[in-house]
């Protein structure tokens, strides 16, 4: 019995290795097109799009894509909007370095919790209302910046604005309802990357707005408050657009889903158990904390760093800081692409080496960034650091689908939370205390990145091997079916609940790399026709 086709976590995309992972469309024989449906794009039997047409706004699929990623982008803009304006805010509110650091930590901590809740909200109300509720209820928190007059207020407001980063979950969930599982990898990856760009765009937008408002005649301590109105209005506008133009499903809104009735879902407690007892989950939670996590931390400190260290104007510091976040546009997909290329030749071992190389290089460039004394070298080091860290994010999600078939959703969620946790931790350790300067903090963070990437050497798949060890020689243990089957108890297997995992196992044989052809037939694999 298959799980719900297209439900979050059910993506089989890229699994055979023979399909180009970043496929823009699914060919018809693989997934039959429903020719009775009248949509602008070819759709499957559930009316999910089989084609990803980037520059279209066709209702409902591509329109959903654009509404979704722009909402996520807006939330990134408002969460990191304070960062490039800190040189002004710190004088207005009489902040100390510790206050600035605490606010940065607060801005990424709120969403650890809100992302977990958002999954449930999307299940109950649908992704359209999930997104709209969050974005419109967090608009008042952004407007609240006009009231802030102390360090405590500043930290509290940044914490509340940070809740809005849970739009990541509604964004990914909503895509899963609109796009066929075989292209969902590219769609979700693009949406996540473009949303993350908001952290870079805000470093450009906010100083520009501040400058314009000052030229109109406001004093500095009032101008930055007025500047916050713009991201807040964006929240409201996007919320209204999502409510009026969006729909939960290709055929309409959530009420339709409720009429169709529910398919039996997996037990949450079991899914959680298999996620947390798999040690690989925790290795990648740690790793993502040092790719995505350091990216978020850097979004918070980099503009102020360039402003102070090199005596730049606010806008110049903002432009430089923006290039860091904007690199996401290509760097994150690039990491995923490299992962797939490595897998074609070397299988999973290639993917693991790829993540380790990218993330370690990112760490090395971060050390260099902290130590660079001249502006051009500093900018170069920052750009290389951004590519390394963001490509590592993309590469990490090239491996996550293979850790578990049954618990993919929770593992993805835990990994995401690990990213935010890593960000809070690095800001606490390196950018809050006055004991060392920001440049020393950056170098120390780089060292920690290199150290915390080492655990990926421990990740071992019996069927594919690890970075240093070949796959297991045991005939039973070295089969993909055994690995994915071990997530189900005998009772569940007898009920046939593990069929989806077996299908996945067979398709994942591509992770052996070039050895696929010589793979022995596992003795206990269930034949495809029962």
């Amino acid at each position: 019995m298959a799980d719900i086709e297209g439900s979050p976590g059910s993506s089989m995309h890229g699994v055979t290795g023979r399909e180009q992972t970043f496929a823009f469309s699914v060919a018809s024989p693989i997934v039959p097109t429903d020719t009775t449906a009248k949509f602008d794009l070819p759709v499957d039997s559930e009316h999910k799009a089989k084609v990803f047409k980037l520059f279209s706004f066709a209702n409902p699929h591509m329109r959903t894509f654009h509404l979704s990623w722009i909402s996520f982008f807006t939330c990134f803009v408002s969460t990191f909007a304070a960062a490039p304006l800190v040189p002004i805010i710190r004088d207005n509110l009489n902040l100390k370095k510790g206050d600035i650091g605490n606010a940065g930590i607060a801005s990424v901590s709120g969403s650890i919790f809100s992302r977990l809740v958002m999954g449930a909200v999307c299940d109950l109300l649908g992704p359209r209302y999930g997104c709209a509720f969050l974005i419109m209820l967090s608009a008042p928190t952004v407007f609240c910046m006009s009231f802030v007059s102390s360090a405590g207020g500043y930290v509290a407001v940044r914490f509340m604005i940070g809740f809005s980063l849970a739009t990541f979950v509604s964004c990914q969930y909503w895509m899963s309802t609109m796009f066929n599982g075989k292209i969902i990898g590219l769609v979700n990856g693009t949406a996540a990357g473009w949303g993350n760009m908001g952290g870079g765009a805000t470093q450009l937008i906010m100083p520009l707005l501040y400058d314009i408002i000052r030229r109109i005649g406001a004093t500095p301590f009032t101008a930055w408050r007025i500047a916050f109105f713009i991201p807040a209005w964006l929240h409201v506008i996007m919320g209204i657009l999502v409510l009026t133009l969006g729909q939960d499903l290709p055929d309409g809104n959530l009420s339709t889903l409720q009429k169709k009735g529910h398919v039996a879902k997996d037990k949450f407690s079991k899914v959680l158990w298999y996620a947390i007892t798999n040690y690989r989950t925790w290795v990648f939670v740690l790793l993502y904390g040092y790719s995505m996590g350091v990216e978020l931390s850097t979004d918070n400190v980099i503009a102020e760093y360039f402003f102070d260290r090199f005596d730049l104007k606010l806008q110049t510091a903002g432009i430089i800081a923006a290039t860091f976040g904007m690199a996401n546009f290509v760097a994150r997909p690039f990491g995923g692409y490299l992962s797939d290329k490595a897998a074609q030749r070397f299988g999973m071992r290639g993917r693991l080496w790829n993540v380790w190389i990218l993330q370690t290089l990112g760490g090395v460039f971060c050390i260099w960034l902290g130590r660079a004394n001249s502006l051009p070298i500093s900018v170069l080091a920052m750009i290389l650091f951004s590519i390394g860290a963001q490509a590592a994010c993309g590469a990490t999600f090239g491996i996550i689908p293979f850790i578990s078939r049954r618990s993919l959703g929770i593992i993805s969620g835990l990994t995401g939370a690990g990213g935010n946790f890593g960000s809070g931790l690095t800001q606490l350790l390196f950018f809050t205390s006055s004991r060392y300067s920001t440049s020393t903090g950056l170098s120390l963070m780089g060292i920690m990145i290199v150290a915390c990437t080492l655990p990926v050497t421990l990740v071992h798949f019996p069927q594919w091997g690890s970075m240093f060890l070949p796959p297991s020689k045991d005939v039973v243990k070295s089969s993909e079916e055994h690995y994915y089957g071990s997530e189900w108890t005998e009772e569940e297997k007898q009920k046939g609940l593990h069929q989806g995992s077996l299908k996945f196992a067979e398709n994942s044989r591509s992770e052996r790399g070039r050895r696929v052809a010589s793979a022995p037939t596992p003795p206990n694999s269930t034949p495809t026709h029962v």
Partner: protein
Amino acid sequence: MASRILVASILVFSLLETCYGGVQFSTLKRTLLINASPKPGELLKAGDMVTVTWGLNQSLPAGIDDEYKNLKVKLCYAPISQKDRAWRKTVNNLSKDKTCQFTIVTRPYKASKENQSFKWAIERDVPTATYFVRAYAYNSAGEEVAFGQTTDSKKTTYLFDIQAITGRHPSLDIASVCFSAFSVVSLFGFFFMEKRKAKISQKN
């Protein structure tokens, strides 16, 4: 592509940027006497007037001020306001020193026996902090050659406080509340309207 153009332009601009090794503060002679109107520990607000009076220390030998061409009087942070705030750090190299960030007045230097004074209204972008006043004398090359300050060398005496404006404005607060209310009301309004429509269409 865009980032490459950016890096190239930054490289070009930084090559254009000339870099002078800065004057060291410890080499400056304290030859100027300067007085500021706030009493020690007094709390001032943005908009209050501060009168600064300065002149050469007459007990010094004549001719010591021959190379002084310009004079700048600045508002400087006291050590307590620099604590945990590296962006206000005191550094000996004056081109990197961040102690004095606000200029009160710039005047060409006039060698005379009488003191000169200037009345300054505290601007609205001055942050809440503890301050003292310092004057720098510059030579014709634009380098600092002498200074004077209202406090002692350890910067512990004759300090005064300034309370900044909050930057808040009632009209901003009201606008903020109105837009927030609009956001919440329109969200719930939409939600309940759709629920009612669904109920009505289900009845039919």
